């Protein structure tokens, strides 16, 4: 007896699966880029000379890092439109926004760490040469901090690939939800999710490899 749990009809189900994978990749790329920009702004703000700016940034970072992405997504999708009717975005766009603000908080923390890792002497040297705060950041600190931030940044991007699986809660059809829709038709969760896992691996592993290669190159 062929147990239906172990069969997977690639001809029929691979295309929707790949489309889901495409959505996952798009989400991660978009949120990765947006999250890096948000993270840069808040990471720099977190080490700004003005206390209120530092304080605001740390509220954003700590709050978003303290709640599950699931809750962030649900809030954005269902509650924001109630409060601000004009901010009614599609599922995919909401997913991108949700993942971006989430990524922003984590990337900010990564940038803050790398900025702090730059020896104080570098800042003082910039200061003694007459560079102002933004110039010191732009020309002296950030170029060095960025380099340090790459390995943890890649690590987070990998986490983001996986966190993106949770956008299915707002019915965005990413790789995970594609898998769930397919199991409603083929009733074969084991094989279906093995394929899903394999696709996630294919998306995420190159990132791991790149991260490792980069770290070795730095050392």
């Amino acid at each position: 007896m062929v147990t239906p749990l172990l069969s997977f009809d690639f001809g029929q189900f691979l295309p929707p699966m790949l489309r889901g994978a495409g959505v996952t990749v798009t989400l991660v790329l978009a949120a990765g880029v947006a999250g890096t920009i948000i993270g840069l702004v808040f990471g720099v703000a977190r080490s700004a000379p003005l206390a209120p700016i530092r304080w605001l940034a740390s509220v954003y970072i700590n709050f978003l890092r303290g709640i599950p992405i699931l809750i962030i997504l649900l809030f954005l999708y269902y509650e924001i439109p109630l409060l601000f009717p004009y901010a009614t975005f599609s599922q995919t766009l909401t997913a991108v926004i949700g993942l971006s603000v989430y990524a922003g908080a984590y990337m900010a923390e990564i940038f803050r760490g790398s900025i702090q890792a730059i020896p104080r002497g570098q800042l003082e040297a910039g200061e003694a040469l007459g560079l102002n705060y933004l110039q010191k950041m732009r020309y002296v600190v950030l170029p060095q901090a960025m380099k340090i931030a790459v390995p943890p940044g890649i690590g987070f991007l990998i986490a983001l690939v996986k966190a993106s699986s949770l956008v299915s809660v707002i019915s965005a059809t990413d790789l995970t939800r594609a898998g769930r829709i397919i199991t409603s038709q083929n009733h074969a969760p084991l094989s279906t999710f093995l394929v899903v896992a394999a696709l996630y691996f294919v998306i995420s592993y190159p990132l791991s490899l790149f991260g490792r290669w980069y770290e070795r190159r730095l050392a």
Partner: protein
Amino acid sequence: MSTPPPTPTVMINVEDLHKKFGDLEVLKGIDAKVNEREVVCLIGPSGSGKSTLLRCMNRLEDFHRGQVTICGHDLTGSRTSLHAVRRDVGMVFQSFNVFPHMKVIDNLTLAPMKVLKISRTEAKQRAMALLEKVGLVDKAHVYPGKLSGGQQQRVAIARALAMEPKAMLFDEPTSALDPETVGEVLGVMQNLAEEGMTMMVVTHEMGFAREVADRVLFMDNGVVVEQGPPKQIFEQPQHERTQAFLSKIL
């Protein structure tokens, strides 16, 4: 020529300078003066406040009582003219603090372009001339990571000179160096002194102080204990703390 030496202009003037870190009083009323074209060496035991004094002179460190004027800028009170001060006063640190992510030449052109707003071409010309002076023309397009400590410190000196400062502050510029490369850095500093740069140098290199300094200041525990020409300080120190210090270090 027989013009009499002009009355010296005071380049750096420190009066009754007090500085606290929290409750710890680190500078307890310092008076010090450096004339134009003069080289003053600052010596003293670790923790006596030498670095702090130097850093107060270009306001890397705030102070809460006293007066500091440097190159015509009054540092007392508001922070308004900081920018101009930094332009006129070069500083060289113990840990060279060259920018590791920039080639040597870019280390030298960054501040002139961004702060003095001179053109890239002009900044480059100036930089090459300075590299010539510190003997590093062939390293212009190398990253600092590939240089020895002594070479990095020469880059740091050239970088400060690229701003065409009127005075230079040195904080133990050779104490992080291999014994063998100390000489090349002191050489560059000696040339600078001979060209007439106004310099204040914190150092443990008594040989340099003896040979190059016009005056030596001995600090201990936040006060200037004694000062005078090197010959006098090294050979006939008046104060017993100076004597104790010199006996340990020479």
